[in-house]
């Protein structure tokens, strides 16, 4: 286990380095000029040049990258161009809101996906199965901003059950979490269904039946843990998908998380914030996978944490 973590830390560092390099290159290649954005439309060429020098943007790419890496190693993610504050502090202040949203979203998608997937598997070929599969298809296919607006219209505007936007109470988290979760729930329902159908046909499930166990026990104690194994690996990978959704959902619901921060930064070509959010997201994905790898051997004794 210790070896696994050490190896993963080394891998994580390499992955983050790669992510940083690629993002840096992409932002550098961007046709927008951050100095021009900061200076404003009416600024003189001299002002723009001064700002550019001030930010170090006149240096060659490699030098800029090296300077940035040095900063990161000292725990310094740089200063925001637009907000003139420390990027690390900005992200840190916004992180809790995003973590709450993600936790709620993952909860919605896993619980909904599991329940629907198990029911569909048990009623395989029946009307319920077909309905669940149809619904999951819609859930997977619908763009998140459409789902978000739809939920807003029905549950906030028409029914008035939940607030339109903002942050603070438990009621605020419901619609954003549902928006995030519906997409994943569709995926999970399909995955769980096929994994369950596979497991229910295994010899050991027949053994469990031959023992005279109740259906509930057979499904929950014998089949489900086996069916969960591929799902757990999926959750680790899924966090990456999630970050994309978080940006959209936070923007629509005015949720004060890092997704919204990134959204604003992109509009302002605020490169240090974009870099910072990208790196934090990459870190989240790597940690998610590490978590999945740590949990898997706890469920499946055949897997050794190596």
């Amino acid at each position: 286990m210790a070896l696994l973590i050490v190896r993963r830390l080394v891998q994580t560092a390499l992955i983050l380095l790669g992510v940083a390099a690629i993002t840096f290159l992409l932002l550098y290649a961007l046709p927008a000029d951050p100095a021009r954005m900061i200076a404003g439309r009416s600024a003189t060429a001299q002002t723009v040049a001064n700002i550019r020098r001030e930010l170090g943007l006149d240096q060659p790419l490699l030098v800029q990258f090296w300077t940035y890496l040095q900063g990161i190693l000292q725990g310094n993610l740089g200063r925001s161009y637009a907000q003139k504050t420390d990027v690390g502090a900005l992200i840190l202040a916004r992180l809790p809101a995003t973590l709450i949203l993600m936790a709620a979203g993952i909860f919605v998608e896993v619980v909904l996906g599991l329940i629907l997937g198990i029911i569909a598997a048990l009623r395989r070929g029946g009307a319920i199965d077909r309905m669940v599969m149809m619904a999951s298809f819609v859930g997977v296919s619908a763009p998140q901003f459409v789902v978000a607006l739809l939920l807003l219209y029905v549950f906030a505007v028409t029914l008035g059950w939940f607030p339109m936007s903002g942050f603070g109470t438990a009621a605020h988290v419901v619609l954003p979490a549902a928006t995030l979760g519906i997409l994943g729930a569709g995926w999970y329902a399909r995955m769980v269904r096929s994994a369950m159908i596979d497991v229910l046909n295994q010899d050991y499930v027949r053994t469990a039946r031959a023992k005279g166990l109740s259906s509930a026990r057979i499904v929950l104690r014998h089949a489900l843990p086996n069916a969960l194994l591929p799902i757990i690996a999926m959750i680790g990978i899924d966090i990456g998908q999630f970050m994309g959704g978080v940006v959209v959902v936070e923007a629509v619901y005015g949720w004060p998380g890092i997704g919204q921060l990134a959204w604003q930064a992109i509009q302002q070509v605020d490169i240090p914030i974009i870099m910072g959010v990208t790196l934090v997201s990459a870190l989240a994905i790597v940690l998610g996978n590490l978590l999945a790898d740590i949990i898997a051997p706890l469920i499946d004794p055949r897997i050794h944490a190596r």
Partner: protein
Amino acid sequence: MIVPVPMPVLTVRNLCVDARTPEGRRRVLDDISFDLNLGETLCIAGESGSGKSVTSLSIMGLLPKASLQVASGNIHLGEKNLVALSNRAMRSVRGGDVAMVFQEPMTSLNPVMSIGAQLTEAISEHQGSEGGTAQTIARQMLDAVHITDPARRLTQYPHELSGGMRQRVMIAMALSCRPKVLIADEPTTALDVTVQAQILKLMRELKQEFGASIILITHDMGVVAEMADRVAVMQNGRIIEQGDVLSVFEKPTQAYTQELLAAVPRLGAHTGTDGPPRVSPQVTTAIPTPPSPILHVRNLNVTYGSPRWLFKGKPQLTAVNNVSFELRAGETLGLVGESGSGKSTTGKAVLGLIPFTGDVVIDNKNIAGLNARQMQPVRRSAQMIFQDPYASLDPRMAVGAAIAEPLIIHGLGGRSERDDRVAELLRRVGLQPDAATRYPHEFSGGQRQRICIARALTLQPKLIVADESVAALDVSVRARVLDLMLELQETMGIAYLFISHDMAVVERMSHNVAVMRGGRIVEMGTRRAVFENPQDDYTKTLMAAVPVPDPRARHVA
């Protein structure tokens, strides 16, 4: 002597089961009636598709609802009619009054639950004993099936136990609630012959100890002879003959039973002869005398795993350890051993399918260190027939295309020549030439294996490695496929490296025999020497463990 009046524990009367197919209902069990008497072992024998497993699942109430359904008939266990019981009532019968042991010990236990959890679960369900009491019973059960260190085993998981041990656990689990009836469906088919002997012995012992009556389902007439008090022979969903074991074996009344018994290979059936029996009517011996060696293997070693390097790598495992033998044209070397003995690995190495060290000389060409391109011409003279005819044919490739493929790969012949060759090969293996346009799923297991043989013959090889090539086939089909292989050898002078776990089949097929264990050849010699006068202790153990299809020759009274 007072003959005790038989007391039926379980009575099956006029049981009919229908399968629901897209074409409508089809009867898979037709008017099955039998009694299981107190304390007896009833063997239900038959080939695949005879309905013996459906019979056992009907008794357990475990028929897959979507496809199989009891149409009529009764199954009485004491006062209860199992066919009419509610789901809930049936649950207390399953595992409580009637318990079952399945064929595949490797997959019949839940991989993510500890042995203890799986054992105590049945005990809690039916005896209402929880926690400590259930644990104690579980430990006693493991003790009863002779598993060492039972307390530790309870905390282990299935993958940490061998196949034989897992089957012991299955038996412990089945007997833990002291059932009146134990149904064992091919309980030893997946096990090595020495392990099979131990499990059969265990079942006999436990039958006495636990007072259970046993229904033993098997295709193996040797196991029947070893275990049965009475026998029911099934064919096409009917019981065609039943009676006590001696009368069924010695005075079978039905033609099918006679055929089945005649087809069973018996160890020692070829005592006193040197080679396999001749099967072809025309004596066209193409073998030159003295026959030249077609395959020469010297100091063959195969190692799995790579050396540990930093974090990577698995521990190394020597699968084949310094094996040497030779095989002459028109002869068969039987390579016999249990699972993990390295016999299949040897077969693969001989054809250069896996990396090895040492020398393998096929038809005067050493294949050691050859790359794929250099191997190509050698592959023309050496082919392979695999174990599972269902898995070794591409389901989306027409039979003719599969047989012609080697010709295309080696760039031999034009289209019409290939078609002619395919037709000729199909005829050669006893199939109609029009089979070429059909697909593998349209054929039975035996026919598929004939197709595999035809495919192996396409390039007119001098050597064929046959790895458990008849293990998946029913006895009657097996006998015909073996005859075909012998006939091809007689007329074409093919040399076989015949790999099998089945001693009787090896005896029938081989001129020479090598016995493998733990990657080494422990004994090698002519068939006559090895079978009639085995020198190595392991060979002797192996031969003693083979069930004899004669109820009068039981190992234990």
